[in-house]
């Protein structure tokens, strides 16, 4: 079977990380985002993965060549000269996809979940129509495109974009299986699959929805990236607990690369992932963070809900966290008019997974240095910057 992964473009929402690396290669829980999907596809019997890309394709190509060898599958690149939307890339890769008559997967590259690819294949064969969409239940469906379908068969009646009243709580999870016949519906031009292709298929009764069990997250922006990390680690606790770390100072779900190093008297976790070569010195407290390869956190610092980029140097006694608000804006709904600010610097034990409402995640891009004794509240720092002054309110540091 084949799979097309819509890698797309600049990954601007995941900046500043994606200024250094194409988004699919950003490590999520110590493995490139793309690899989570590709490995799951390979395990489900996919032998050919096509990446629809438009940016930094050479970097991606090089990395994927290595993976080809390792996984024993074929990985092709389909390069968009101009952005083709969410359906256009299928037309671009038409020749590759039509090599066989089998249905093929189409995935958004940003989604993470417990990929049920085998189950999807069976579901698709069972109803025998042109398309199957994975849907997932969410709490606030009106932020997304909502799917209305029959409860028992899963046959999709219609799509509603960002509905004003409650229509359904199931949304498109960004993973499909399509039969080659669908390719005839798509032309080689910027096209939206959700707006132009799926609604037609639904009307013709050709589209079916399968509900995803377990967690799901679109990790295309920092706050969701961290939330997704929490969900993934929780799932790991249930499925493969031996991969998680334990030991002195480790709290809750913590994933640590074997080459990372942790000092004494630390408190790491819950919900932390430390990448290869990361050094965490003595007396450091890290909660709900991703620390990427080769970063170094010096002693006595405190980090919460942050992403620390590759090779960063965070000084001693530094405080990094993600603020709810600064001095003026961002009051929680229903709270009184306080002249001062209220920071969501709440120990994660009180809000284990999702409940901390975040807006401005502190993200340190590649090779950022933060001097000793500073605090950063919601700072988004571009690569190679040195920070010599505290950042009291959410800001972009260029």
């Amino acid at each position, binding site marked *: 079977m084949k799979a097309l992964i819509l890698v797309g473009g600049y990954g601007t929402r995941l900046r500043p990380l994606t200024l250094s690396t194409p988004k699919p290669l950003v490590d999520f829980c110590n493995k490139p985002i793309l690899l989570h999907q590709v490995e799951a596809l390979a395990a489900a019997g996919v032998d050919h993965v096509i990446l629809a890309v438009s940016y930094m394709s050479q970097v991606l190509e090089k990395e994927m060549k290595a993976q080809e060898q390792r996984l024993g599958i074929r990985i092709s690149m389909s390069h968009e000269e101009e952005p083709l939307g969410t359906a256009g890339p299928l037309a671009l890769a038409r020749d590759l996809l039509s090599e066989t008559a089998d249905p093929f997967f189409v995935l958004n590259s940003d989604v993470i979940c417990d990929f049920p690819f085998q189950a999807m294949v069976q579901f698709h064969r069972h109803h025998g129509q042109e398309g199957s969409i994975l849907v997932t239940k969410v709490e606030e469906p009106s932020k997304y495109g909502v799917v209305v379908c029959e409860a028992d068969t899963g046959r999709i009646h219609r799509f509603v974009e960002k509905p004003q009243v409650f229509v359904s709580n199931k949304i498109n999870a960004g993973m499909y299986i399509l039969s080659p016949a669908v390719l005839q519906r798509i032309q080689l031009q910027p096209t939206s699959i959700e707006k132009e292709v799926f609604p037609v298929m639904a009307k013709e009764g050709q589209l079916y929805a399968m509900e995803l069990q377990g967690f799901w997250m679109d990790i295309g922006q920092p706050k969701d990236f961290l939330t997704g990390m929490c969900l993934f680690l929780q799932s790991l606790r249930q499925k493969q607990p031996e991969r998680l770390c334990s030991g002195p100072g480790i709290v809750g779900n913590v994933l640590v690369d074997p080459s990372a*190093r942790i000092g*004494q008297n630390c408190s790491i976790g819950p919900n932390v992932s430390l990448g290869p070569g990361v050094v965490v010195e*003595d007396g450091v*407290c890290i909660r709900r963070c991703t620390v990427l390869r080769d970063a170094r956190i010096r002693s006595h610092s405190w980090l919460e809900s942050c992403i620390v980029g590759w090779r960063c140097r965070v000084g001693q006694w530094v*405080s990094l966290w993600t603020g709810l608000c600064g001095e003026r804006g961002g009051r929680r709904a229903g709270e009184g008019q306080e*002249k001062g600010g*209220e920071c969501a610097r709440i120990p994660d034990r009180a809000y284990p997974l999702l409940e901390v409402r975040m807006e401005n995640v502190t993200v340190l891009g590649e090779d950022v240095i933060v001097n000793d004794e500073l*605090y950063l509240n919601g700072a988004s720092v571009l690569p190679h910057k040195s920070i*010599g002054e505290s950042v*009291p309110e959410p800001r972009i540091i260029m």
Partner: protein
Amino acid sequence: MLKAVILIGGPQKGTRFRPLSFEVPKPLFPVAGVPMIQHHIEACAQVPGMQEILLIGFYQPDEPLTQFLEAAQQEFHLPVRYLQEFAPLGTGGGLYHFRDQILAGGPEAFFVLNADVCSDFPLSAMLEAHRHQRHPFLLLGTTANRTQSLNYGCMVENPQTHEVLHYVEKPSTFISDIINCGIYLFSPEALKPLRDVFQRNQQDGQLEDSPGLWPGAGTIRLEQDVFSALAGQGQIYVHLTDGIWSQIKSAGSALYASRLYLSRYQTTHPERLAKHTPGGPRIRGTHPAPIPNLRPPPRFLTLSPELKPQSLFGVFAPRASLLLLGNVYIHPTAKVAPSAVLGPNVSIGKGVTVGEGVRLRESIVLHGATLQEHTCVLHSIVGWGSTVGRWARVEGTPNDPNPNDPRARMDSESLFKDGKLLPAITILGCRVRIPAEVLILNSIVLPHKELSRSFTNQIIL
């Protein structure tokens, strides 16, 4: 024979010093490790011929004050007495009211010192100037820049004779860049003009009593009633100094005064400054360099070979010491962990506990407080018996005068501007409890409060 009078005010005064003034009279608040007026008394005790030190104010003589007086007498072998005004009598009223006690024994002159100033007290120089040419009033003056002078008493000086030609307290337009330090040397003759003012105010005071606008009966305001009135009449003279000087009206200025005194200790009281001892806490003297200090780490920070790949949990604490010569005062009974890093400008009071890996800079930690492991306390005052939880960060914003300008002084120290709390020193009142891992920034926490979350830019009742 000489005497000294220290004007210590009373509870209604010094509201800018709250909440610290709830626990202790402001004159007894520790600055650079010792009570504010101890610096005054020490300076007075060093003047040859000093016979007696009188404290005048309207505090009730409570425990702390009485104990302080006793201790001072013992240490300096001088009578130190407290004369309590029956009501607030203004900066000059107490002097007039207790004139008999001041003049008892026939002193040649007497110093008058405001309690809420920080200075190197050039009293001998003032005495010499006075003996050279005796006048009723000799004021110590220093310089400020034009805008800041408006916050103080301004004097116009005759550069040849050093007479004060004109005096205005807190003018609204620029008068002079010479300001009143609040440190004076008076002849016994000075009591005469005080008597005149007293009697005049008595008559006016028979009329409607409107507090705040007119002085009440028996009150004398030295600045307005005496200095302003008598300027230019050959009675008031000024002696200029360029030594350290600052007013202490707020917590921020107390911290600044602490810094001034601590740096002076290097010459006057080197035994009060903490020195680095092997195995003791590291004392840092200057701010970390603005250039990234994270060049390839010094040798002692790399891992020893046996800690390579296999073991995940290593040891990083550097053993060698960092910079010395920080200006840090540590009370002998305080317990400070060796991995703490202190300074510059840190005062640690009696019985304080400073845990492992604490960073303390530009701050005062008062008696019995506890800083748990890995906390970071910057530009703050931690109140008596308070506790700061692990990894918490307590930080204020300094409003210190420009260190590169010797004439720069503290600005007007109000808490609010345009209805918003100005960023200032963070103050934790007495017995405040700060939980672990929170941030307290630019805030004032009133006594006995237990916080449960972070706060920025707020007064927490």
